């Protein structure tokens, strides 16, 4: 049982938790569910989750264990590499019920982690915390356990980042809706972003030269790396490479458009020959 455990969460999990919270039944104040993923040495990676219907009363908690096991089985069929790694709950604090629920999960897997996501936005933010259940006490005397926080961070793979990039746009629209963008627009947008970033950099450099802002050596070194990382190529070579690439791409575009026109022609001609044959058939039948 390692207290120097690190927890990595994929964005999918957080989205799923928020969605389950939105769909909870009226009398529940919070939602609980199972986390699945993989454990790798000191690092627990959570890749998926599903919520479980439960009811909380003063003294006890009722959770549908059958449901939990069923869903886990179903999930295993689709993603056999995902194991049970813990459970989550929405809300800001750990209640006494959490210990009871954690008890159940301890039976299912070794050392489950507990993740909380504050969907009630208590501090104006959606804080996410992870805990492990650590026994404490003096040996020989009564021992208890408590939830100890462990560091948690959000990780995302490249495709997930691309998805998030698109989803972020919905924040700025009144209707909270956005269309998936065509590729060229994406490029132009990032070009704009690069321009803004370069402007900010230039302003900083000029301010340093003026002396109004103290020069920070670390930033200076990264700037130097940035400038040096542009590959050194003399103009002639670069022109050649640029032009040949351009020609290739233009040729491919031309050929694909040509293919499309050919396809249209093919369709039309086949249909024409069909009607020709039919006409002939009619003529012969009348004979």
């Amino acid at each position, binding site marked *: 049982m390692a207290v120097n455990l690190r927890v990595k969460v994929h*964005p*999918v999990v*957080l*989205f*799923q938790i*928020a969605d389950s919270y*939105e769909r909870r*039944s009226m009398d529940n104040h919070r939602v609980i569910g199972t986390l699945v993923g993989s454990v790798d040495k000191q690092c627990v990676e959570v890749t998926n989750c599903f919520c479980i219907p439960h009811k909380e009363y003063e003294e006890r908690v009722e959770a549908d264990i059958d*449901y939990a096991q069923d869903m886990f089985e179903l999930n295993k*069929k*689709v*993603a056999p590499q995902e194991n049970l790694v813990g459970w989550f709950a929405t809300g800001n604090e750990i209640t006494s019920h959490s210990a009871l629920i954690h008890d159940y999960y301890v039976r299912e897997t070794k050392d489950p982690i507990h993740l909380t996501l504050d969907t009630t936005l208590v501090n104006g933010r959606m804080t996410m915390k992870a805990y492990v259940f650590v026994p404490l006490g003096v040996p020989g005397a009564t021992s208890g356990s408590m939830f100890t926080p462990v560091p948690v*961070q*959000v990780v995302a793979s*490249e*495709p*997930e*980042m*691309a*998805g*998030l990039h*698109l*989803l*972020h746009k*919905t*924040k700025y629209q009144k*209707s*909270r*809706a*956005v*269309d*998936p963008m065509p*590729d*060229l627009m*994406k*490029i132009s947008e*990032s*070009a704009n972003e690069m321009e803004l*970033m370069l402007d900010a950099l230039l302003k900083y450099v000029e301010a340093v030269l003026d002396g109004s802002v103290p020069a920070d050596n670390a930033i200076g070194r990264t700037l130097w790396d940035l400038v040096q990382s*542009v590959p050194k*190529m003399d103009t002639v070579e670069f022109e050649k490479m*640029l032009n040949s*690439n351009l020609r*290739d*791409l*233009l040729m*491919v575009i031309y050929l*694909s458009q040509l*293919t*499309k026109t050919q*396809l*249209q022609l*093919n369709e039309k001609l*086949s249909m024409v*020959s*069909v*009607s020709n*044959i039919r006409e002939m058939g009619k003529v*012969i039948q009348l*004979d």
Partner: protein
Amino acid sequence: MSDRGSRRNTENENRIESVQIDGLVVMKLIKQCHEAESSGNAFAQGALLGLVAETRPDARLEITHCFPFPGLNDETIDDEDFQLTMMRRLRQVNVDHQHVGWYQSAQFANFLSPTLLDTQFAYQTSIEESVCLIFDTAKTSQGFISLKAFRLTAEAIKMYKDGDFSPDVVKDLKLSFESLMEEVPIIIKNSHLMNALLLELKEQLPLDIESAQFLDLGTSGTLETQLRVMMDNVDELNQESIKFNKHQNLVLKQYQDKTRWIQKRQLENQARASRGEDPLPEEDISKAFKPIPPPSRLNPLILSGTIANTADEVSEFCSQSLGKLFITEPLQNAKMSASNAQ
């Protein structure tokens, strides 16, 4: 879009004008399709759950949840069972349980196949509003999200209902490879809570640093694969065209033979009549010349559709590569002028 008095007034024609997808579904799709790709499955499939909002005239399909199907290679799992159990369980947590479609991953627009059309036909006849969502994994690994929603057009449904793909039927319905499937525009929507979550994520995952994959200039690899796929498809289409032409030639020859045969019989009959004998008994022409079955037009249509899609994808890919090249040009020039000025 009122279709009163159209030739389809016996069916309920539900046109879907747009598809609205929750951010959650997009993330789940990404996760599942990429996992399937890395674990070696050909493609990933799953079901879409949601509801239909705003009936006519502006029917909108909202997709609020999705779940994956187990791998196709595993025969021990009963698909029906899995689906039913899954949907029952999801209903218990208040997820919309109306089955509104299905999704499949694809690599650069190679998704059109007879199985896909079959499945979509089955879906669309049982659930009027279903769509098929195609998620392109090859493009997402490059950094662009490619999500398309397709439905079979009414003409295509008619053709499938009869089960007859002969050229005559195709000509009558004026079907071309473009009017086989129609694309429905997609909107992605998030709730307020999701927006709050996104703000939180933005702090934790600074986007600017890590998401520069799509600015990569190395384009030849993907271009090669795409072009190769297109060449293979064109070859196959060529084969199909040859088959079709052969069939046309055979039919023509048969007609000529028939004409000659009829003329011969008429001459015979005239000769006999002039000699005073009975004319030959009428023979059924169709027994002598069996009609040749025409080849199915389904494959050529599918191939043409695939080629058209691939051509579009290639064009788009090239245009964005061109854009990137044009960006690098002034950068290089600036660097040159800067180093010359020193």
